């Protein structure tokens, strides 16, 4: 088992920039997320939301700036830190040739979890996939999405990164995901998610930030005031334009 890292309680982007050739996708972004916070990353397509999540997931390195998990950067902390991060990406990161249980068992063992079978059984129950034995390739998009979410959360990560988690989910599943996010928030996780589905995350997020033109704006405080998230989003988007 990888040695347990003392858990970090914040994720900070410090002046992070990332460019691909001539295209600057992120320009000196600074953002700090605390434990027990759900932060929504909003913005038009191609704004760089997925890039920001990939940077936090250590899939990309910043062109400049730093990303800190608590006080440490990934370079200082080593591979064990990756075990505290859970990612639900646009590509679902599950093997289509294996069954749901086999996928979860593989990743559970890879992450060095104790009592893998029990955790996998519980995860499959939550996803409503316990009775499915066939390869994941045959699943519908929504089922694969539910499985991918369980895979991301199997090892009880401290930092949860979700890229468009509500895509393809029906009403029931959406409700369950909302509950799940609430639970994560109470458990003290740091949740950073991207979505276009502003109505669904209404009341669920503590903070929303708008990523546009490679820069970040914080939407007005989400204090339960009269203006809905979508109204605030529109206002911020128009103000920047």
């Amino acid at each position, binding site marked *: 088992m990888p040695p347990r890292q003392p858990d970090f309680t914040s994720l900070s982007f410090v002046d992070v920039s990332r460019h691909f050739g001539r295209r600057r996708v992120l320009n000196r972004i600074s953002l700090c997320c605390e434990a027990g916070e759900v932060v929504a990353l909003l913005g038009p397509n191609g704004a760089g939301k997925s890039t920001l999540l990939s940077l936090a997931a250590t*899939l990309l*390195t910043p062109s400049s700036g730093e990303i800190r998990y608590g006080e440490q950067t990934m370079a200082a902390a080593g*591979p064990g830190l990756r075990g505290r991060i859970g990612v639900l990406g646009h*590509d679902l*990161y599950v093997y289509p*040739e294996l069954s749901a249980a086999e996928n979860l068992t593989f990743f559970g063992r*890879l992450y060095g979890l104790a009592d893998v079978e029990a955790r996998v059984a519980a995860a499959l129950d939550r996803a409503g996939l316990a009775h499915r034995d066939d390869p994941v390739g045959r699943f519908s998009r929504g089922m694969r999405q539910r499985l991918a979410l369980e895979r991301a959360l199997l090892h009880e990560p401290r930092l949860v990164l979700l890229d468009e988690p509500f895509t393809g989910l029906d009403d029931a599943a959406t409700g369950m995901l909302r509950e799940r996010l609430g639970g994560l928030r109470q458990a003290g996780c740091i949740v950073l998610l991207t979505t276009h589905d502003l109505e669904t995350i209404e009341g669920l997020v503590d903070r929303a930030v708008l990523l546009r033109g490679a820069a970040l704006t914080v939407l007005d405080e989400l204090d339960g005031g009269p203006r809905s998230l979508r109204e605030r989003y529109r206002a911020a988007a128009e103000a920047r334009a």
Partner: protein
Amino acid sequence: MFLRTVWLVVRKDLLIELRSREIVYTTLFFAISCVLVFAFGFVRDGRPVEDAAAGILWIAIAFSGTLALGRAFERERQSETLRALMMAPVDRPALYVGKLAGVLLLLAVVEAVVVPLVALMFQAPLFAHPLLMAGLLATGTTGFAAVGTLFAAMLVRARSRDVLLPILLYPITIPVIIGGVRGTAALLQPDVDLPMATVWLSMLACFDVVFITLALWTFEPSMTE
């Protein structure tokens, strides 16, 4: 921990492969076709051309190995599972070794069929010195696969990856091909040259050590963006 990761990756690859057996069957069939095509090219007057058996065997291994590598990593490209592996809290070189072990197992199966086939078609006494022959096959295939696994992993997110893999792989593995062919030929020729075969075997073993070490060092830097 390192070995555990290797084992988990190999086991997962075996599990997937045993379901469909797609890569095994297609690679095997391709290797056999290769041998046949070369057989028509090189056999004259009903007699095998000298040294043709050795050359044909190793070319078939190289070509089918390239195909297998491409297919194996194409699988990891779907759903970007290679990225998921990289994100796990494991030693990344262990992922490389795990993939390499899987490819070697696959090529061992292919060779188990192709070697007797070549022996049969070219009346080549490939089993006369089984230990040396097995040694040459093992070290040669390992050298080829070691470089190939690294390159195939690196190319997963590159453009034109299908054609770039052979372009990059073949020049660098030329010493492996030379060593394998000359070593095998030394065993097949009428006056068998055992010391020569052993010399080639040692060179292949050296190659394996050097390049596996290099691959372990360069895997992580080359896979991070």
